[in-house]
């Protein structure tokens, strides 16, 4: 019993799935079972967006203390505008538009790393400065942008198979790939090694600079992808479309069992945490709780989770 408990405690990300299940149960108990399936569908559909940026943020945070990408919201906003403008409502331009959004995100990621590398400043302030500039570009570029996504793209982002959103299926495949990349590729191992001990990593022959570069570029690209998908799902680009993903991306990473001190990452936990947060909102909504209580609950849960998981050794 004790050993089983200890094992469970050793995998804090499991709690996020347990938590997601519990809040879902509570919600359907409240509604008397009504809408149980729909709730899961909606939760999966919304969780996708948090998971995509969560994976990018996870790789960044795993690089070690001080590593975090604050430019994600601005990145998502700009990419959503770029995608909509390039697609221009035309089904035949979907692929090009997606590529443009990815390219936009990639460019932002590379710019972030260049700032970190050239100015030798903490990533947090580099991505912050970048986000100010990206935000302005977005405001200027996306001014009065009323372009709807091409119908094919909007349908795709909203499509379901047996109540499971297609995007969710694709994202599950993507996260499975990320989990494998994390544990089974040189890149993934390098990220983990750097996060645990950057000095030891360098001395063990890990390519530190290259790995960090790839990580920021990857996170930027995922932000770009998320922007395009969000614009498709919500039928239009918007400067503020990415705003909630700054805190959400960090929150799912941490609740999902990734260590803020670096070197320990967990991909399935991101799904658990994203579902948990979305379902928590759903549950509180079905209870008829106000937006304020929802936020307070979310915040307190983040603090509780980190306190319970805390006591990690201070970063060197």
């Amino acid at each position, binding site marked *: 019993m004790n050993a089983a408990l200890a094992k469970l405690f050793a995998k804090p990300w499991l709690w996020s799935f347990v938590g997601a299940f519990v809040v879902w149960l509570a919600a359907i108990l409240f509604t008397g079972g009504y809408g149980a399936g729909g709730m899961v569908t909606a939760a999966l559909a919304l969780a996708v967006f948090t998971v995509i940026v969560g994976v990018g943020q996870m790789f960044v945070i795993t690089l070690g203390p001080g590593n975090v990408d604050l430019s994600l919201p601005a990145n998502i906003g700009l990419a959503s505008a770029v995608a909509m403008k390039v697609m221009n409502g035309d089904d035949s331009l979907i692929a090009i538009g997606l590529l443009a959004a990815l390219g936009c995100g990639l460019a932002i990621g590379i710019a972030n790393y260049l700032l970190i590398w050239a100015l030798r400043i903490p990533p947090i302030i580099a991505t912050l400065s970048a986000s100010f500039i990206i935000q302005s570009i977005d405001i200027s570029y996306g001014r009065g942008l009323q372009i709807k996504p091409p119908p094919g793209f909007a349908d795709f982002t909203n499509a379901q198979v047996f109540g499971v959103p297609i995007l969710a299926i694709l994202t599950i495949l993507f996260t499975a790939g990320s989990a494998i990349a994390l544990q*089974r590729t*040189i890149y993934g191992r390098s990220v983990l090694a750097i996060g645990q001990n950057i000095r030891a990593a360098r001395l063990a*022959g*890990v390519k530190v600079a290259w790995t960090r570069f790839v990580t920021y570029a990857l996170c930027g690209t995922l932000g770009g992808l998320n922007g395009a998908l969000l614009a498709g799902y919500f039928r239009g680009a918007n400067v503020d479309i990415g705003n909630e993903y700054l805190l959400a991306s960090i929150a799912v990473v941490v609740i999902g069992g990734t260590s803020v001190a670096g070197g320990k990452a967990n991909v399935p936990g991101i799904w658990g945490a994203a579902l948990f947060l979305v379902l928590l909102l759903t549950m509180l909504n079905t209870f008829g709780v106000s937006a304020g209580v929802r936020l307070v609950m979310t915040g307190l849960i983040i603090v509780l989770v980190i306190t319970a998981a805390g006591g990690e050794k201070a970063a060197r």
Partner: protein
Amino acid sequence: MAGGTSLNIVKLEGVEKHFGAVRALDGVDFSIDQGECVGLVGHNGAGKSTLMNVLAGTLAPGAGRLVINGEEQRDYSPTRAKALGVRCVFQELSLCPNLTVAENARVFHAALTGLNWRKKAGRLILDKLDEIFPGHGVNPGDLIQDLSIGRRQMIEVARAFTATDEPVRLVILDEPTSSLDAHTAGQLLSFVRRVVAEGVSCVLISHLLGEILGNSDRIVVMRDGKAVASGQAKAFDREKLMAAMGGAEERKKKAAAASLAAARRGETPVCVRARPAGQKSEAQVVARQGEIIGLAGLAGHGQTDLLLDIFAAASRKQPGVEVTAPVALVAGDRQSDGVFPQWSILENIGVRSLRNLRDGLLISRRREEKLAEFWRDKIGIRTPDLSNNILSLSGGNQQKALFARALGSDARIILMDDPMRGVDVGTKLEVYDLIREEARAGRTFLWYTTETEELQNCDHVYIFRNGAIVADLARDALSEEKVIESSFEAG
């Protein structure tokens, strides 16, 4: 021991301190009288610094009695030590780099408050600096981070002698002159003699035997966590001290090591040439294929820096360093340079060889396991399961895993940064055999060690002092006396 008439300040009886399997202190008896300067000498890792940390209250002893001013101390802490008048100047400096000189004095003295505390603190530290190091050139308003390491050490020393509401009875100086030039070191030592004459007690730790012999009343020699010799300073000279530090019985082990295949120096191709950054002469370290090259001397005299330069040269050109083959490094400071604490033994071993462990795009678990299992058996890593966390191993076995990481890789040159720190004797002997075997198979080793007896395994030894090579000994010319003589500056 010192005369029974003077007052005893500190008495340590049977003090022990263990770090995991390492016995840093193994039942030490030690005492200091009022107005006495005790010189403390011993090799790296003999336990001097640990003993002083116990005395300063920063480490709690595992066993033994601590008596200060005739009272046995139970809840001993840095605060308590300070109240009793025990001050310590640590080797790693304890100044706040972001504060000024005066502010650092304030940090040290809780009594420095009130509106003009800044002035009082500045006056206090400045007066002491003037007293110890006339012409020091330090202003109370200088930020510590702007000052040279030598000045920082001067401030640290001066601060330990300042007094407000707490008395100064005993000051421990752990290598106080390591960053001072000869002139300021002389100023400090004559000050120490003055305050000792006034009744303050001092413990002086130094690797400069001349300093110890010339300034102490009594000398205590430590080895392997024990105080092995003690007596009036007059009773010692350099040779006696070295004999006490070095230990005679270890010489017997030489014979065992003598069977190594004496590499034919000058026959195999050169694979490393490296000149230390601080070297003014043309001397350089040269390693030929299949050789075991020892880098000796006291800790922190440039050996590690040279290894890091060689390591860096393998991926990017470094001035003064030439390397012809892939390089791997075995870290000695396992926690900060070697071990990945979240990972299993398996992953810790495989990290240097990821490229060769791939099967297509992905790292093959099977190959990773095979590599680890091969080295577990070869090097004898004692664990029930290689997928256990690396920290589940004892220090010695962790070190073996780091050896396995380097030896299991494609590297032809292995750099070893004092890798046997805190490793038990059994492990050491196993690893020595392995190193010789690998060298016979054509691998080249550069081996920095602080343990003189380990040099018996080397074909050629370079001795370092102050960041430069000061002696270059072939295997036949190697002797313990030679190494100690070259490491310790005459003076």
